[in-house]
């Protein structure tokens, strides 16, 4: 099949399922002995009937609690796992066929797995990837120069990988992953274990790469800052099922039916006065945070200004972390 970006989505996932058989072993030596003769297996639905499409240049956040099926989905999209059912096409290819032209245009980076040669300098892996992906020398040199500048690792190219810090190694992993300028890029927890400054740098790198190469990127992360800064669209997945797929703003509007009213008081007031306005989330004089239904926010804000002595007042959307927690736990976002 010839892939035409103007008519087809870059990534198409239809009713994808991935089930595993898992051996249930009872604890202790007795359990181990029993397992020698009879084993109980149960089906784990890692991914259970999910569908979505991604267009060229989209940068999408894939969010869910541990074991939700995020990484499994990425592995199915990159051809690492054979789907139990459903259809997946990426750039017009079925990933599991592992066609050379498909593999040349994708990349997957998994935070804790590395493709770098441990005992050799990172430049050796880059040179090897140049040949594997058949990148023309001039293009390779330019890309390498840009990437090492962007990530500030030019002086580390000839240092053995095992002697690099975690952050430096992650940067090198990213370079090895994009040296062939992939059109589709799967990033699984790229900022895991990194300090805040390093996280920021990597985020900037991902943003720049996405804009410069119009690459379609799926990012999974436990850090909401990654998602907030990078992704306009989020896909929420829980227990293998897709629970939300839309913009970040829509997520907040859809899930959180309230806003947060923060007031700075000039004079202390009774709790009962505050409770008349809305649910009190926090009260530590002079700061008050109230949770108020979206449709009542204007009326209640006006009422607060009239009935209380306030020096400042702001209306905010609830925090994305809290909204997402609400989706997964069913508890109200504060």
């Amino acid at each position, binding site marked *: 099949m010839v892939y035409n970006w103007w008519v087809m989505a870059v990534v198409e996932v239809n009713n994808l399922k991935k089930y595993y058989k898992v051996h249930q072993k009872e604890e202790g030596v007795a359990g181990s002995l029993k397992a020698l003769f009879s084993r109980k297996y149960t089906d784990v639905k890692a991914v259970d009937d999910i569908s979505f499409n991604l267009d060229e240049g989209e940068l999408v956040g894939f969010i869910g609690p541990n074991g939700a099926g995020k990484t499994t989905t990425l592995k199915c999209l990159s051809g690492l796992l054979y789907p139990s059912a459903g259809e997946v096409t990426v750039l017009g290819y079925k990933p599991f066929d*592992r066609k050379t032209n498909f593999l040349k245009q994708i990349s997957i980076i*998994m935070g*804790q*797995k590395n*493709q770098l040669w441990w005992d050799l300098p990172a430049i050796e892996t880059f*040179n*090897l*990837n140049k040949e*594997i992906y058949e990148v023309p020398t001039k293009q390779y040199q330019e890309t390498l120069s840009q990437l090492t500048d962007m990530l500030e690792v030019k002086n580390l190219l000839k240092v053995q990988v095992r002697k690099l810090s975690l952050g430096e190694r992650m940067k090198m992993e990213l370079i090895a992953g994009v040296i062939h300028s992939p059109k589709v890029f799967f990033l*699984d927890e790229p900022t895991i274990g990194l300090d805040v400054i390093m996280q920021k740098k990597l985020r900037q790198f991902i943003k720049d790469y996405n804009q410069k190469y119009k690459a379609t990127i799926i990012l999974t992360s436990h850090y909401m800052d990654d998602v907030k800064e990078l992704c306009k669209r989020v896909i929420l997945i829980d227990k293998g099922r897709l629970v939300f797929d839309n913009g970040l703003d829509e997520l907040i509007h859809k899930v959180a039916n309230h806003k947060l009213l923060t007031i700075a008081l000039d004079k202390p007031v009774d709790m009962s006065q505050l409770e008349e306005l809305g649910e009190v989330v926090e009260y530590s004089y002079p700061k008050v945070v109230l949770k108020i239904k979206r449709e009542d926010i204007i009326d209640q804000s006006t009422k607060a200004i009239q009935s209380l002595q306030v020096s400042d007042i702001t209306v905010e959307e609830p925090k994305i972390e809290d909204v997402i927690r609400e989706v997964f736990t069913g508890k109200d976002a504060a």
Partner: protein
Amino acid sequence: MKKYWVDLKISLANNLEYRGQLFVWFLNEFVGLVSTIFIWTAIFRTNTSVGTYNFQSIISYFILIPLIGAFTGVFVSDYFPRKIKNGEISSDIVKPYSVTGLIFVDTVSVKITQFTIKVPIYLVAGYLLANYFRLELYFTHLLEAMFVCIFSFLLHFFIDLAISYSAFWFQEVWSLGLLISVIITVFGGLAFPLDLVPEGVRTLFSFLPFRFIFYFPIKIAQGQVPPEMILKEFFQMLVWIGVFFLLCRLLWKNGLKKYGAYGN
């Protein structure tokens, strides 16, 4: 093809990082050889021959084992099954190259590294020992054996790879690897020359591919296989290489469907 060439060079550079390991390899084989010579010297104190072997021919058999092994030894099943189990082959699977080709190149690079260190030492040691024990070894026979060894290596490689790929189904392939090493030690002619066993057992051995890994090239190096026999056995060896090559392809193709890509 250039990608495999570059991989070979990088793999060689990587191997040289492990100079200590190279020395241990060598020490391991040296100790093994010395103890085997002691055992057979003790046996021949009370015997003049064992089967068709006299003292000289049995010693030359065991001196040739490390030399032939430098060509035909393969150790893929020592590490690759663990990589499958731990999901460490994921970064290879998503790259546009043949993983089997890559393992082959890496194995060849280990062979080259071992070669550059082992073979000169073995040739000198072999020459000294041959003089000491008054062994009759001829260069032409050694050359014939070296040629056959290339194919013995290929056969051993695909047997070992098939074992390794079975890790897609059996999570604990370690015991399977150990089993195959026992089989090769006994059926391949590492523990003793295969023509020392009774006729019936020898017939069983002749239906199996393992004798081609050590026994067959050693006997050629000793000049004990007639040319027409070499040709017949060589053809059989090629058939076995084909069988295991196809088996590896089948196992890889179907094994990938079983691959769990665990560990992340």
